[in-house]
């Protein structure tokens, strides 16, 4: 598995990375952990002339608290995201999802921003980021801009990040005290999600006050199950009530058909997994 020849560039600042990107444009690929990029290069499905490795840019790594927001540097590794106490407390859905991503080797190499910018609809972080209303900070030659989660994922492997831009950090609004659960359905443990549902719920006594639900691999981008979210408000966290609300989980989705299941089966799974995720998230 030998990739085609390429130049390896290792900038140590965002500015250097942006200038390399400006210089090489379409001939360059950005590597942010390489857990999807390297396999496709090794299979010669892709052959960039330049690989710009963001791994040497220290400022892109780390997780910090800024008021009502938890800020995750784009180059923070999955394993560090999974172990982070701030996220566990304020954005538990991220913590719950990231531990199911691929396998330990990938979680020690792959990065939070890399996975989100890769925008594989079967990836495990898009749905939770969408559900939590994350803000994506994208940096280009003219400075930084912020893109809302709803606008970030455009299509299969396509995001709002421009040709000359880099995703630098992800800002996640605090959901302190919200319960969370990520229900991932796979045949073997290390597989991409067949379908997964991330749910985070704010309880008020025995009833659901607010719910946010992100669907993984139910279309060309991560999706919010808004109809379910709306239906859940004010409902008790019971099997029947949640199950009833979850019936509309597949509304407006367009899931793929592949070796792991056809679209009908995935739609069915989405309703079951949504019910299970919400009920688990609502557990005190």
């Amino acid at each position, binding site marked *: 598995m030998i990739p085609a020849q390429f130049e390896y560039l290792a900038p140590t600042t965002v500015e250097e990375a942006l200038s390399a990107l400006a210089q090489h444009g379409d001939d360059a690929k950005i590597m942010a952990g390489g857990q999807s990029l390297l396999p496709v290069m090794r299979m010669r*499905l892709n052959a960039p002339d330049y690989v710009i490795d963001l791994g040497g840019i220290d400022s892109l790594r780390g997780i910090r608290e800024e008021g009502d927001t938890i800020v995750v540097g784009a180059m923070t590794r999955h394993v560090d995201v999974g172990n982070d106490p701030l996220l566990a407390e304020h954005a538990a859905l991220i913590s719950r999802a990231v531990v199911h991503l691929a396998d330990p080797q990938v979680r020690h190499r792959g990065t939070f*921003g890399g996975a989100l910018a*890769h925008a594989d609809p079967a990836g495990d972080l898009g749905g939770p980021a969408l559900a939590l209303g994350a803000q994506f900070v994208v940096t280009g030659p003219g400075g930084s801009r912020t893109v809302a989660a709803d606008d970030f994922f455009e299509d299969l492997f396509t995001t709002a*990040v421009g040709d000359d831009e880099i995703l630098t950090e992800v800002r996640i609004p605090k959901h302190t005290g919200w319960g969370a659960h990520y229900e991932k359905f796979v*045949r073997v443990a290390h597989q991409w999600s067949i379908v997964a549902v991330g749910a985070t719920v704010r309880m008020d006594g025995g009833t659901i006050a607010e719910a946010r639900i992100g669907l993984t691999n139910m279309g060309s981008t991560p999706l919010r199950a808004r109809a379910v979210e709306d239906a859940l408000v004010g409902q008790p966290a019971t099997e029947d009530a949640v199950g009833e609300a979850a019936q509309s989980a597949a509304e407006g989705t367009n899931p793929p058909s592949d*070796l792991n299941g056809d679209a009908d089966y995935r739609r069915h799974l989405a309703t079951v997994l949504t019910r299970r995720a919400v009920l688990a998230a609502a557990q005190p």
Partner: protein
Amino acid sequence: MTVTEKAPDQEIGQARRRKEDQRLITGRTRYTDNIVLPGMLHLAMVRSPYAHARITSIDTDAAKASPNVIDVLTGADLGEGQGVCINAWPITPDQKTPVHLPIPSDRVAFAGEIVAVVVARSAAEARDAAELVDVDYEELPAILDLKEAVKDEVLAHPDLGTNKSALWVFDSAAAGTGGDVEEAISKARQDGVLIEREFRQQRLIPAFMEPRSVVVDPTGEQLTMWSATQIPHILRFALAATTGVPESKIRVIAPDVGGGFGGKLQATPEEWITWAIARRVGKPVKYTETRSESLMAAHHGRDQWQKLTVAARKDGTVTGLKVELLANLGAYVAIVGGGVPVLGAFMYNAIYKFPAYHFSCQTLLTNEAWTDAYRGAGRPEATFAIERMMDELADELGVDPLEVREKNWIRHEEFPFTTVAGLEYDSGNYEAATAKAKEHFGYDDLRAEQRRRREAKDRVQLGIGVSTFTEMCGLAPSRVLGSLDYGAGGWEHAEIRMLATGKVEVVTGISPHGQGHETSFSQIVADRLGVPFEDVEILHGDTAVSHKGLDTYGSRSLVVGGEALARATDKVIERAKPIAAHLLEASIDDMEFTGGRFSVRGTDKGMALTEIATAVFTGHNLPDGAEPSIDAEATYDPVNFNFPHGTHLCAVEVDTETGEITMRKYTCVDDIGTVINPLLVEGQVHGGLVQGIAQALWEEAVYNDQGTLVTGSFVDYTLPTAADTISFDTDTDSTACTTNSLGAKGVGEAGTIASTPCVVNAVVDALRPFGVHDVRMPCTPERVWKAIHDRDQDVASGAVPHFGADTGMEGVADRSTGAEGAGQ
């Protein structure tokens, strides 16, 4: 700190840790790809993306102009000098066998077939240049389905005029081993029970850990090939037979080899091409395949449709079994090829006393990768089908599946027993293994829980799977192979070299590729010769060292190779005896050999065998005329197969809402005769179980409608990992094999053979309340869910790989022209 392990009194039966593991696991050893020779060149293959196409032109100019490329060669360039890939087992005299050139020059017959080869100074440069070879194809209609293939409407090889390669038939009435199956069927139709089912054995990929790799050094008097193969001796023979090089000029070495599972029991185009190129350029040449190439072009396994008819009386006594197979050979008849389903022919009657049996197998050529041996080779298919049928019979009769088996199996006092397929089973005790397994498993309690869940209509249902099995292993008595028209014998060879310093070198014709033979064989020799385990060195896999041998497959290494070894040790002792008598100044009749020492009966005089080795080395004081050597060799041809058996039980929970299967318990009791090393046995059983369970639940090689392999990477070919399995409850029960002196039976394939039907039976058992009688393998959650809802279980058409031309590639490519493009 050094821990000194006290030598046990007896090595056989000790759970010795594997002496070869450190080097094999760390990789700091002689795997083929680690071999680097001065001036060595590297190859890269250009492969057809089409399943069936005429090659109209190949432009190699750009590739030849690429940096450090020595040459680019096509099939036409290599001509007849490249030899051919052989089929060693034409199963019928009129078998249709397409010529299998390593590089065809006119037409490709499966996606992945080699059309050109690049020779360069580095592997990377060869790979780069291979991308520049421009091949024009004219696509031909491809045949990609067994049931279509049998119609002969689209031909895999138009010149042959048919896809039908061979029809192999066994009939117990004709053979005189039993009655007429059609009679049994018509009687059952009148006043008995008739069960007819069709099962699909999906296509599997052996997926060994070390990809195939080959190095050929043409310098020196002998041409030397290193290959990651299971069969160095057979390769040497095949190279001599097909490439015109005298056998005496060929040395083949299988250095350390990282797994095979039958997948490296092959004479491959890649080996033949590397051989031809090295001879042509006169320099050492290496080729190591990529994982993608391995999945696409190394041989696959299984791929059959099995139609079975069981005739029985209403009390559950089976009166006849009829088996009709369609077996996919792929594009060519591989080295064993159609022999794989034929090996299964003797096993459909399994542990049972069926009075009438008919078997037919139609082998078919298609435009898919060739198929051949894969762990169990024919026997898993047979066991799966009959054990599924016994469950179906039990369901029809409304009795416990173990009860219907017991009604039909051979009782322990009936051994030796000649089966309806004509084999003589020497020993076994199915009652004992089954009783032990039931007890370990908690069979009755789990059945009670199952009833409760069924009554409560639980969302999660419990299924209990049963499988018994036996297999013919220890391939094989040479006469039997001869009667089946196999191209070689089944004997094995061993040699003992007693070194001057008291150490022992053992040469075996067995070719280990991960099994742990260096450990188990050392234990046998240590016991037999009374030398420390650590003092025994096992040499193997090099035809210049181990000049005779028939290699490793078919659970033969211990029971055939180990027996040869035991016999060689006996000869060493015999040879040493007169020398010991001479040195001890005693009569040869008074010599006793125990614990590695010769002693004079009734005295305290004695000396160690190793001391005699030293005395022989100096040669200073030997009997008159004695040859100064106590080394010995033995060649052993087994008198019979041996027949390990076992009872496997498994409980699965099936989530009826999603189709998800969760294994709850797996118990097996295997009777493998004398256990040499229980740790190695456990390892073989665990690995075998996972491989068999993987066929039941996870693995399938899938082609799309164009004949492209969709499961061409481990993203889509879903191998299980430790995270997907549970802790198995394994045990052994021992009735010694009576046809070898070790009393051992094969264990390498046992787990794989029994576990597949056990798991599928459990899944179907869980779903019986829903009227389900079968779930196609692999039993994916989707298939289970569709079975519950009575929907077609076919895989979605238009399936594509996760990283592929229509998904990952375009996605990533899009981002190189569009958005950011960070890798995950």
